[in-house]
């Protein structure tokens, strides 16, 4: 196994994991969504790395070229980007409503308020 051959993938893993870490470790709801964006974008980088052919060119047919990079992952990621922004939009909308209902967007404060509410309900 060649070290350099896998270099791209290892960095991509590092990127994915930093996004993933932000999602689970941070308590601010907006920050979590940013982490999610980074996590997803990094997965896109993984896909696009798969599609690359060294010496190839963008998959737009032209008589000058014979080697093209793989167009299929590009298509998948176009779809995934859209899915990603749709999720972000919905998540942000939820965060706004949570701010209105709870007065905060910090996870621990929200959970505390929920516990209080449950305590007072009984």
């Amino acid at each position, binding site marked *: 196994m060649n070290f350099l051959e896998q270099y791209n993938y290892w960095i991509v893993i590092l990127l*994915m994991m930093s996004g*993933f870490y932000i999602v689970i470790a941070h308590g601010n*709801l907006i920050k979590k969504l940013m982490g999610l964006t980074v*996590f997803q974008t990094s*997965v896109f980088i993984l896909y696009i790395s798969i599609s690359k052919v060294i010496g190839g060119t963008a998959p737009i047919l032209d008589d000058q070229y014979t080697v093209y990079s793989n167009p*299929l992952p590009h298509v998948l990621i176009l779809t995934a980007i859209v899915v990603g922004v749709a999720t972000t939009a*919905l998540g942000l909308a939820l965060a706004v409503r949570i701010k209105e209902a709870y007065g905060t967007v910090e996870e621990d404060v929200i959970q505390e308020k929920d516990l209080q*509410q449950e305590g007072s309900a009984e």
Partner: protein
Amino acid sequence: MIQHLPILQVIIPLLAAPICFILKEARLVRWFVLIANVMAFVISIMLLQQVNLHGTLVYSLGGWEAPVGIEYRIDELNAYLLILVTSISTITLMAAGKSLTKEIPESKITYFYIAYMLCLTGLLGIVTTGDAFNVFVFLEISSLASYTMIAMGNDRRSLWASYQYLIMGTIGATFILIGIGLMYMMTGTLNMYDLAERLPEVEHTKTVFTAFAFFLVGVCLKLALFPLHLWLPNAYAYAPSIATVFLAATATKVAIYVLLRFIFSVYGFEFSFSHLPLTEILVSLGLLGVIAASIVAIYQTNIKRLFAYSSVSQIGYMILGIGIGSKTGLTATMLHLFNHALMKSAIFLALAGVVYRVGSVNIKAFAGLGKQMPWTMAAIVVGGLSLIGVPLTVGFVSKWYLVLALLESNWWPIAVLVMIGSLLAIAYIWRLVEVAYFKPALQNNQSYKEAPLAILIPAWIFVIANIYFGIDTSFTVGVSEKTAELLFGGAR
């Protein structure tokens, strides 16, 4: 038109959604949605007929044959699941008109119906497709729609529950995306049946192993396998009642379908169970889920939440059945998948009736309801008995097969634990029964009337199904055995 049935199954509810957005008027939308649902239900029955006549149906979308294009592929397993999803969705919708007016502001009801249709579309799309990436796309449609529905609950906690579900669901979807990407990397294809053919060549690589692991974890997040279930209890507890019924009865079931498809049809029994310690993982997580979630359920004061935890434990049973890795085990899973949908639909619909009249599902509010709302409470009790696994209910049938499968593999200690799980179910059902039937109504309680018929009748359709399929088991057992056979038969 007959050959187009597979796609019509999905695009009828799909196109209904934007049309509803144009129609706007809630009452109009309601009828329109109901008609679209009935059509989807009829199509699912016709599809089953076609499958029985001609065997597996293959439909190439855009006229491009797979693996170049995306194909829909329907065999008996898909066909039965489609019937399950569309029938439950249709019956649930009958109760929606009444229930929603109490729980959702007038101006948002149209949005709820649209989200409902989109969620249904997503679920149907997942079940019909034969393309791994298409699964991801439709999974996201159904997920985004369910986040929306859950957030429309009238308690502020519904927002928080929806947000948590969004985060965990998206992590799950991203894991699935990683899994699909790695599979594609090693095989160059996205079609499930092409994957099944090409995976054996590379099945010893670590990449394929990782792909499988990520896909599995992602799906298990979606189906709320213990300990990845954290999003589920609050989501079910605070969502509008109709959303709870629909999601509890169908969404997790479809996730289990995806799990089965990939374990058995794509990777194959050989790979999943001999190369990997899948038996150990699934059996131990399943058991842990059964026991832990049941215990937590006993301490709940919010009854919707109680039954949500019960859902987590019931999912444990299904996973346990898969983990056994035998035909009988899989039969038990398939049976429980069907039966659990019936139980939870009955219970949550009856709870929708309670919410409609009483406005609360706190256990204290149930005092005296046994007398005041006898039919509603009876529906919950029958559903509860079914959860416990009392003979003459469907719950008994699936537990019976599960224990049978465990004894067949000589795992009697686990069989004992499954029994203990049932005992725990008695505990949490009993708490409710005790309050409802043996406690006098609170003094300041006004007297409550029976739930409106629009909610009660759908609930009782499910209750009767619970009993009918508990007595006449030939249909469900026959189907489950056939589909288990099919899954063990390999890809095609």
